[in-house]
């Protein structure tokens, strides 16, 4: 029982138990947690299988992004009105269990009686180390034989992002300008507003709201005496002396 196998068995066992936990947990957040544990253990197994880059990628992409998104959705969807545990009719659960075990039996049979086909590939561990490590080797392989699939994946990811944006946008764009019904009178316009009958005053001088924010800072207008600017308050950028 070499150390490698022992560690592999432990990690594998935890991964499988965690996976079972995902299925059996009552609260989806607990199942998400179990999934995190399972993914981390699988990442550790990748390291044993000398695929460090993929281990890091797995943690960054799967646990770091996808599962976080799933947790977001679980929490935004108001986690307390959840369908009851398991949900399936008992008979359905039992049937699924039997089906699963049967499938497991078949696959195990296939695994044990298989014969290795084809000769080993060029990337033996020594060759990988010579190149400088798993990342460098993977980079060479990817960008020599698989450049096209990378471009296709890039397009796929772009399409997915756009799809997500479309789905997540609120249905009706929120009306930004709230209608404000304040009684507005105008200093410069003697007639003022007839608030009683809701006539909106014509404010030629003060087109309120069209506010242009220039990039630089602002200068204040200094009034020398109490009489300056009484006809026309300094408003808008007209007064940028």
């Amino acid at each position, binding site marked *: 029982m070499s150390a490698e196998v022992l560690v592999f068995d432990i990690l594998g066992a935890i991964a499988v138990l965690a996976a079972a936990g995902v299925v059996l947990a009552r609260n989806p957040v607990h199942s998400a947690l179990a999934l995190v544990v399972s993914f981390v253990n699988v990442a550790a197994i990748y390291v044993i299988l000398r695929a460090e880059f993929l281990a890091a990628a797995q943690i960054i992409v799967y646990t770091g992004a996808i599962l976080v998104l799933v947790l977001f959705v679980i929490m935004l969807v108001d986690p307390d009105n959840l369908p009851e545990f398991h949900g399936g009719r008992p008979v359905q659960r039992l049937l699924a269990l039997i089906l699963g075990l049967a499938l497991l039996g078949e696959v195990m049979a296939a695994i044990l009686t298989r014969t290795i086909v084809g000769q080993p590939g060029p990337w033996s561990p020594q060759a990988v180390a010579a190149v400088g490590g798993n990342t460098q080797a993977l980079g060479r392989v990817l960008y020599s034989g698989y450049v096209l699939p990378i471009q296709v994946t890039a397009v796929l990811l772009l399409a997915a992002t756009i799809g997500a944006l479309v789905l997540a946008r*609120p249905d009706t764009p929120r009306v930004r300008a709230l209608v404000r019904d*304040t009684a*507005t009178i105008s*200093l410069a316009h003697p007639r003022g507003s007839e608030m009683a009958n809701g006539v909106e005053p014509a404010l030629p001088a003060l087109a309120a709201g069209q506010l242009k924010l220039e990039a630089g*800072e602002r200068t204040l207008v*200094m009034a020398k005496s109490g009489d300056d600017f009484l006809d026309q*308050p*300094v*408003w*808008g950028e007209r007064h940028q002396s």
Partner: protein
Amino acid sequence: MSLEITEPTPVIISEERQVSDTRRELVLNMGPQHPSTHGVLRVRLTLEGETITGCDPVIGYLHRGVEKLGESKRYAQFVPWTDRTDYVAAPSNNLGYVLTVEKLLGIEAPERAQYWRMIMAELARLASHLVWLGTHALDIGALSMSLYCFREREMILDIFEKFCGARLTTNMMEIGGFSRPIPPDLPDMIRDFLAVFPKRQREYEDMLSANPIWLARTRGVGVIEPDVAINYGLTGACLRGSGVNYDVRKAQPYLFYDRVDFEVPLGTHGDVYDRYLVRMEEMRQSLKIIQQCLDQVPTDGPLKLAESNYVIPPHDTVLTTAEDMQRHFIWVIKGFSPPKGEVYLAIEHSKGELGHYIVSDGSPIPYRLRIRTPDFVNLQSLPYMAEGAMLADVVALIGTIDIVLGSVDR
């Protein structure tokens, strides 16, 4: 024409209402104990996601019934109460009340006293603006600003302490002038402050005025158009930020503001950033005013209108002359009886127009004493500014109105 008064809704911390099939609205309570509500102000916000759809400020947690008390105290006894309304700029409150009573009595303090009153009022404006700047910047995140502002404010409070013995509740202004002599080294102390402060203020502006994050948090936030500001009765920097030129010191000068040369800053966009610029400029103008007052104030001359019976006779002559002792005795026991009539006088307080309306029925106790504080009226514009704003902006909006709950609730 019956008008049923709406049943007061029970106080609920927060609840979510399903407004329509897709929009969920959240009612949120902010305050009254809240780090950035400048005292005990409570704001009920209705939120839709991040934007505010409704804002209802609830005040009254610091209501002490100052106006009711005013109807049971003699004119001179009420002065200490005026410190407690806006506890950040106490000399200005004293000045407002004392000037109104002097107008009712038809008397005027001697020239030297009026100059010293102007100096103390402008120092109070500086102290109030420093508290505003410190807390406003702290709410938006600049931690150190409050430390620097309060360091400068200490210098002003030391001047107050040397002048009248108290730092905060100054109770320094009396009807008819000052009864205690001016400490001889006070003018030099003020001149030192005038020499140091401009450099410190440039430090504040280096930190904030051109800071992109500060600009992002303040520009275009809480915009008030000039006619809306006038309609809401806003005064002080809130009104001048929108470009309306109304400063009581220029519009209806009192004391010797017409002998002093200073300018009134006006904003052009009426947002939080403009009000910030206006108040910073006001501080510089106050320095100019204090400097000119220090130069123009006569070094000797009476500080107290001694000959009028409305005024308590000066201490030194009370013990020597019989007539003053008798007047002192009557003044203390029965107080003075002003003529019947009503008076309203407004001064330019650091937060806006502080007006006192006194109705006198001829008795030594005012019949009605109404204090029009600027914060109370300015705070009405918070719902107008908050609608459509983001939640994180509420702290900036409360800061830009510059409220002190003592004078809002009275």
